[in-house]
């Protein structure tokens, strides 16, 4: 970094004095001229960093806390583990790849485009092998989709557990994918696409994570993707090629996709029997729960995003999504669900993609119980935790799409709570 950009001790003191004034009374009410305006600042006088300082740019140092984070004790080893997107600190809907959550079963692998092979076999006329370059020759599409781990909010079945939207709801990201429809590859191989067939997909990493997808979905909107947000997929998201299964649980979005097999039954792999199934109160379990139901969460204020400005005008903001289609409405409550107000959608979200909502409101400085409730274009209304527990018991791990509550105290600090 350029020497000139290191703040001098003097300018640091001046800066912190201004911050103290600002937080005490609000910058507008500061007595006397603000030194940040009145005094000539280094950055307004000396030159800055030239081009090529960072050929691939990273966020400025002031944002270095906006990173993926894990909770070590959740899993046995970081090689087979998960971390969380800092959704509390983001706005809009697109997740930058560099902070989009990761989940690996045997670690993220370095697989080059040259070494990449994709096989399609099983009930097909012509079993085929594609190289990476082959895939780029086929007609491709662009779509924005969310990818949510089925275990997102899973800890919270047991009650309020982790303090932060990043930790309770951060197993999600939303990117614009470029890829070839899976149906194109199936057609290329002359696959039997009758409705009782399945497509089994498998990764190239040591876990060779495999999932069975019913043919109807495979022919609908599944993509064999190689770009996200305009650039190559990151290693941790399956470079060079991953599967995108819109609206369905993240575990099916097989990374480092190496094989597609057309079968006449579900493989019933480990990830679709021993995992990603939920046990009801009576001991029976449900399986093949692929769709992620409508869900929302307030990202700010939230435990990692306290209100710092005191009473008055404020923005309550959050995210909503549905694996069934578009979000049509989000309601926000400030009193734990007694009264609801309909929030403003940042823009009409794409189908099976994140939608941003805002409630521009006044805070009276009193405690609040903040909640958001999403409604999708099937008319489905996001349930309360009580509704979910009544139906499924408390032994579920996956698919917790309950309404989340943050208690905000008079100081503006927020905490994860459960309410009556």
């Amino acid at each position, binding site marked *: 970094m350029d020497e000139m950009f290191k703040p001098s001790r003097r300018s640091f003191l001046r800066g912190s004095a201004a911050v103290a004034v600002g937080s005490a009374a609000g910058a507008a009410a500061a007595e006397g001229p603000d030194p940040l305006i009145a005094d000539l600042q280094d950055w307004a006088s000396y030159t800055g960093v030239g081009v090529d300082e960072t050929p691939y740019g990273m966020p400025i140092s002031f944002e270095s806390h906006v990173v993926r984070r894990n909770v070590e004790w959740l899993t046995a080893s970081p090689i087979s583990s998960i971390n969380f997107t800092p959704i509390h600190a983001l706005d809009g809907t697109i997740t930058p790849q560099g902070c989009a959550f990761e989940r690996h079963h045997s670690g993220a692998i370095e697989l080059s485009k040259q070494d990449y092979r994709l096989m399609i076999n099983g009930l097909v006329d012509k079993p085929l092998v594609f190289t990476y370059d082959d895939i780029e020759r086929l007609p491709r599409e662009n779509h924005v989709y969310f990818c949510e781990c089925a275990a997102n909010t899973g800890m919270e079945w047991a009650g309020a557990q982790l303090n932060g939207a990043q930790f309770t709801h951060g197993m999600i990201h939303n990117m614009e994918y470029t890829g070839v429809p899976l149906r194109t590859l199936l057609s290329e191989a002359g696959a039997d696409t009758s409705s009782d067939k399945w497509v089994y997909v498998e990764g190239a990493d040591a876990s060779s994570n495999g999932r069975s997808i019913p043919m109807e979905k495979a022919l609908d909107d599944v993509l064999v993707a190689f770009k996200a947000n305009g650039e190559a997929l990151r290693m941790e998201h399956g470079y060079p090629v991953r599967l995108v299964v819109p609206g369905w649980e993240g575990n099916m979005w097989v990374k480092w996709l190496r094989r597609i097999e057309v079968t006449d039954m579900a493989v019933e792999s480990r990830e679709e029997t021993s995992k990603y199934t939920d046990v009801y109160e009576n*001991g029976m379990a449900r399986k093949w729960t692929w769709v992620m139901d409508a869900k929302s969460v307030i990202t700010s204020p939230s435990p990692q995003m306290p209100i710092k400005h005191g009473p008055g005008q404020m923005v309550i903001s959050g995210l909503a999504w549905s694996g069934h289609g578009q979000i049509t409405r989000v309601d926000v409550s400030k009193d734990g669900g007694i009264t609801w107000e309909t929030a403003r959608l940042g823009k009409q979200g794409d189908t099976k993609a994140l939608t941003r909502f805002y409630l521009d409101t006044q805070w009276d400085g009193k405690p609040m119980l903040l909640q958001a409730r999403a409604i999708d274009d099937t008319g489905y209304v996001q349930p309360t935790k009580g509704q979910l527990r009544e139906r499924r018991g408390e*032994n579920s791990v996956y698919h917790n799409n309950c309404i989340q509550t943050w208690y905000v105290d008079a100081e503006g600090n927020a905490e994860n709570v459960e309410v009556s």
Partner: protein
Amino acid sequence: MSKSPNIFIPALGGTALIIGLAYGIASRDYGAGKIEILETRVQQVEAQASVASEKASAESERAAELEQMIAEVQAAAAERVSSEADLTTPAPRTGGSYGIGRAAHSEEIAVWDVDVLPNGRGLPVGSGNAFDGEEIFADKCASCHGDFAEGVDNWPVLAGGFDTLADEDPVKTVGSYWPYLSTAYDYIYRSMPFGEAGTLTPDETYAIVAYILYSNDLIDDEFDLSQANLGSFEMHNKDGFVVDDRPEQEYAKWREEPCMENCKEEVHVTMRSVFLVETPPESGSNSVMNHASAEGLPSFTSEGPSFIPVAVAKPTKQDEANAAPAVQETETEDEGVDLIAAGKKVFRKCQACHKVGDGAKNASGPQLNGLVGRTMGSTDDFKYSGVFLAAMEEGRVWDEAALAEFLAKPKSYMKGTKMAFSGLKKEADITAVTEYLKSFGE
């Protein structure tokens, strides 16, 4: 488009000016001779004005024409949008083939297509029993799953848990929960052992699966499991699953227009976050227990909160910490750096079981900080195999030569080691990983 008529205003204005000037000049009394000249000039000017006026009218007709064309283009675009016939069509649906990709060789398919279906289809020829499986399991699986498949630390428990599925904390093991035995074979053969996937033979896999069944008291140790009987083996929980019932049980019910006002009389907090999660500037997180009680919080009615709690000290000052820029580590530019970087990559083969760096703890294998120069088998609190305990007694020390020999062939250098790893084949890898390990002191 509203701008286009303005283009013609200067032309029309100019014409008017010329006509005005002409009449002004004609009205002056300069005598008959001059009148004639002036009349001629008036005629000329009138002619010019008429030409200019014609031009202006032609231009304004052109403007109207252009406006008409713009309106037509806009109407056509609006029609396309309203009929959704825009240009963002999906990729073409092919009925046939682009002829891309090459035929897969049957040998290739045989190597990659090893998944096993619930009825056993896809199983390779082979067999194994729990008696043989016990030894293989101890060697390759027990470091994570325990000698009796009971699970070590957070690693999966594979045995027991029968009749717990309806309990508060069900124990979901291969025996108590898995509906098909094919899943166990399929998963173990393709994805296990962790960090050494794809190295088991079919016979070893059958033996391991048999040992897991034996640990669950489902077979005796002489039962030969093979491609002939694995697919038809009935699991304890085979009827324990229903297919997704949300459409009937949930979607049909949770579609009512929700309440907006006076939806509840009163709301109170029933539970506060169990953990407070601190987010250190570098990465990761630290969880600390939250000792605050729900009783300290107000209840809510439509009138607002019942009281405003007195502020208590905030649990963390994480925001200030977050604002501090991360400290950059400076690397010395000696030639060791490249080797260390290469060693870091090689170490990926080890990291599933061994930890290094600040605060590294024993995992399935001992932590490796300060390994070179350390007495063998001497890490506190690690359960070593006998051969390492013996080495410690003898005071044998990990020097680079010993390490190189061990890493090349762990099981022959340390006969009886629990370490499942089969060894590093390349000498360069051994050198690199040794340098990498040396970069972590005590």
